[in-house]
């Protein structure tokens, strides 16, 4: 892939857009969705939830997202704790 240069970060933003229907858009969607699923491993309680308003629905989503956020960090902590000490770790203060 060629190197592309920009004079300003704001110019880069526009280049993340693709035309609807462009095969590269579907490739990007697949890649981004897959990466997000693999790194965050979201989990929601199966079932049907009924709400009187979108605000109520959003509130429940916030609860789920918080739980997923905490689970993500718990997994990271576990991985860190399980890590085999490397040479030089004991010298760190």
């Amino acid at each position, binding site marked *: 892939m060629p190197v592309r240069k920009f004079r300003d970060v704001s110019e880069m*933003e*526009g280049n*993340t*857009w*693709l*035309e*609807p*229907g*462009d095969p590269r*858009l*579907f490739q*990007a*969607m*697949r*890649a*981004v*969705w*897959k*990466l*997000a*699923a693999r790194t965050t491993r*979201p*989990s*929601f*309680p*199966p*079932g*049907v*939830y*009924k*709400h*009187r*308003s*979108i605000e*109520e*629905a*959003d509130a*429940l*989503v916030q609860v789920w*997202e918080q739980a997923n956020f905490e689970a993500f960090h718990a997994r990271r902590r576990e991985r860190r704790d399980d890590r085999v000490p490397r040479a030089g770790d004991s010298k760190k203060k």
Partner: protein
Amino acid sequence: MDYELTREVLAAFEREGVKYVIFGAVALNLQGLARATLDLDVFVAPEEGNIARLKTALRTVFDDPHVDEISAEDLLGDYPAVQYVPPEGAFHVDILTRLGEAYGFDDLESERVDFDGLEVTVVTPEALYEMKKATVRPQDWGDAERLRQRFKLEDE
């Protein structure tokens, strides 16, 4: 979110003749901005027959008795927002028949776009912009700004 499963759900909607319009992050994706999301937001026409078709469509994709809990009585009555989390629990489908006093199904401007070989109905960038900027979530304001710049939209 699972790309193939999302496409499969929408293919079922098409096959069963569900009257729906995708909005939210999946709409943003299909309008050209690939972005991670955890839900599929759909407005559905508030008609009993349409809700029945929606349930049939979901049943063809998910072997899940919970689908039966989605009811026209709720969606046409006091519960215009229903979230369905399939058995795998990896994403949710948010089903709306109206959004406060601001939007109903018939108010939404929509268009047909390609989703990897499947024609689906999505809100127009203009409608998505209006919806995104009207919410209280900062991430939606960011999306609204991106839409405004990309499609050169101005406030009405």
